């Protein structure tokens, strides 16, 4: 009987440690406090509606896999008219392409943090980009932070304002801050 208890206790400890090891690799977005901001010439805004699958191992970043999907309908520029125009066909074309997707193909450690190389898909057009990011830890809080730039015209996002035919700038900066658990 005593031996059975010892074996059972060992199995419990083993399963707890296995769970802890798995948990440190699989991360989920903590809550709605994440930020996905973009800015460019005369353009600022953010997105909500993030769904992400984060498999990230600090010890072995090459085994990591990051992917995320943003609902384009959640775009907020601070102005209702601009929000509507951003969803138009010449801009993000929400009607035919409701999401922006990123899927990593490689994650590497760099001198200042990490970088994720992968396919960014906007309006159904994919390009390979590199997203430098860091993993910031404050107590029990863990946050992925990244910054990168894209040329929206490469994704056929040509107009800020479809009706006024105002051209989109060549460079849009994107800042990402995602608290995870």
């Amino acid at each position, binding site marked *: 009987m005593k031996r059975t208890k010892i074996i059972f206790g060992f199995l419990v400890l083993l399963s707890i440690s296995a769970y802890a090891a798995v948990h440190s690799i699989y991360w989920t977005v903590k809550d709605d406090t994440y930020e996905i*901001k973009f800015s460019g010439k005369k353009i*600022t*805004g*953010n997105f909500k509606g993030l769904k992400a699958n984060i498999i990230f191992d600090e010890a072995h970043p090459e085994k990591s896999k990051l992917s995320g999907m943003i609902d384009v309908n959640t775009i*907020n*520029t*601070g*102005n*209702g*008219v*601009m*929000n*509507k125009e951003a969803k138009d066909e010449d801009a993000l074309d929400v009607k035919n392409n409701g999401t922006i997707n990123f899927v990593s193909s490689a994650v590497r450690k760099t001198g200042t943090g990490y970088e994720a190389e992968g396919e960014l898909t906007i309006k159904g057009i994919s390009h390979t980009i590199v997203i430098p990011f860091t993993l910031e830890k404050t107590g029990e809080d863990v946050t992925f932070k990244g910054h990168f730039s894209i040329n929206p015209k490469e994704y056929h996002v040509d107009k800020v304002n479809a009706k006024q035919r105002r051209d989109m700038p060549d460079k849009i900066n994107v800042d990402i801050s995602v608290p995870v658990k």
Partner: protein
Amino acid sequence: MNWKKFLIHALCSTIISCVAALIFNSFYHAWVADFSRIINSVSIFAVYLFMNLFYSFAYMIGEMWKGEKSHPWVNVVLAILTFASIFFMFLVRLPLDIPNPELFPGLAVPLLLFPLIGFYTLLPFFKGMK
């Protein structure tokens, strides 16, 4: 020129339009969307006081020009200016952490009309007053 009449008219109009605006704002807040960080009792009072003083000033200038015969023309000018200012409400950019900015004009546009409605409502009481 009795400037006190115009000042009292502006202050009375500010008070009644503020009361109407606060009622409308509270219903909009409860039923549609919360923009209380942008539009609240303090900002409503400040904007309405400015608008009503401007209306009074326009009437004062009009009466200095052609007496009470100027009122219809001043009314037309104020109505055009107020109507034109409505379109600026569609250009306002709110802080990004405030959701549903497309609902902002639904609150701001009617609120912009309240001071002129209040001013016109009280106008007959001040007509002919010296």
